[in-house]
């Protein structure tokens, strides 16, 4: 199983490196969105609740871009068949795709968070950085699980680019709730710690939907 996941992950990252379809688009989208927010909100800096909201909404929509592309190569180039012909567990593909999406999200955040700190964030980010990384990690796990499930659902349908976001956004609302509420105190001058309640909520949500994705993924891979 581990070998299969590694082989799949390697293939995913290799294809992404060659085509550069997802990560640059996601990162650029995030930075541009920050600029749009500046003009839309008519503010030079944000903090607290507003800052958390701007950050999470931007990351969410940038993530959707990555989710949309996640299975496209497999659907168009017979990757599902090739995989299903091999004596491997379908869960391996789920784990590999989740890991891929996670890598994309981390790459996205490596660009988006500094950009956010530079362009829009009022208070300095330094002291809050460890806390922010923790919250983002919890949120990313949930986005990876739900994003992979939704991407697999949407990819072999007719309106795949529309259905992905339509299905995914409501499912991701609780992650935005937990993530934004947890991030908000980190983005204030006081640099307070996030409330444990939100971290537990995020963790619980990640766990539930991770299990759901694990249980249902097989049914999506069949023809």
């Amino acid at each position, binding site marked *: 199983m581990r070998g299969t996941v590694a082989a799949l992950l390697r293939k995913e990252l290799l294809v992404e490196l060659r085509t550069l379809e997802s990560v640059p688009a996601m990162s650029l989208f995030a930075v541009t969105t920050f600029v749009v927010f500046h003009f839309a909100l008519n503010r030079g800096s944000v903090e607290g609740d507003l800052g958390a909201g701007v950050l999470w909404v931007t990351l969410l929509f940038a993530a959707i871009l990555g989710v949309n592309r996640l299975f496209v190569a497999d659907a168009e180039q017979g990757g599902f068949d090739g995989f299903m012909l091999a004596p491997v567990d379908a869960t391996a593909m789920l784990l590999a795709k989740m890991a891929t999406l996670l890598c994309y999200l981390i790459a996205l955040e490596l660009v988006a968070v500094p950009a956010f700190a530079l362009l829009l964030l009022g208070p300095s980010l330094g002291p809050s950085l460890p806390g922010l990384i923790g919250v983002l990690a919890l949120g990313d796990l949930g986005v990876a699980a739900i994003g992979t*499930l939704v991407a697999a*659902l949407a990819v*072999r*349908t*007719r*309106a*795949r680019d529309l*259905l992905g976001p*339509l*299905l995914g*956004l*409501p*499912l991701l*609302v*609780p992650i935005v*709730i*937990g993530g934004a*509420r947890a991030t908000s105190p980190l983005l204030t001058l006081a640099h307070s710690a996030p409330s444990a*309640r*939100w971290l537990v*909520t995020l963790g*619980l*949500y990640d766990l*539930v*939907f991770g299990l*759901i994705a694990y*249980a*249902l993924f097989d*049914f*999506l891979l*069949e*023809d």
Partner: protein
Amino acid sequence: MYGKRLRPLSIATIAAMALALALVFFYAPLDAEQGFLQKIFYVHVPLAIAALGGFVLGAVLAIAHLRTRDPRWDMRSYVAIHMSLIFAVGALITGSIWAKGSWGHWWVWNEPTLVSFLIVFLLYATYQPLRFAIEDPERQARYASVFAVTAGAFVPMNFIAVRLSTAYLHPRVLGSTSNLPGPMALTFVVSLLAIVLLYATLCTYELTAKHTRAQVRALRRRVLGETPEQEGRRPRSAAPTTAPGAAIGAEAAGRAL
């Protein structure tokens, strides 16, 4: 088979609804704070409960479909979710009316149940577009079932998350439904029963109608020798049709659903 249950169900529903209406207007006392407007609670909350129950039922039926691969479970799951969606719209509208009456706004964000409902509604509203976007009927049923299970798990998680996020400081606009005095509680229970019966009856009607249509198609195919292509360009719908195996002879089909 469903046809047999329709009449007693319909009669029971009409009786329950008549009784509920009578209780609501003539028996339940007026609420001290909200007055007559509060009576919409007897419609709004049962609709919400029926819708949520229906969504979870849809998820359970979808699990049955995934385990047995029998398309009849998928049909039942589809009807359950489809009907719940309609009831959910009813819950949203009555909730909105209630909010307007007691708070002055058509929408309030600090009523966590209403907000959770909106999110759940937005999710389930994608169920039919999802089905419509998949042409292969078997895959359509399978993907719809996966969605139904995911969404069914989402419902309670969503309510928890939204409830947590609504600040404790704001009072609940639409009032708590626990600690009801006797007459109100009785009225509420009867109303709930009436709405649940209405849900069951409407679902049974829809299942019977679909089943009958499928039987007619199967009979036409046998008697007139029509192929599916010849049956005319039926407009594509998001609803599932039963597979040939499930609707072959009249008696067999009678036992089937």
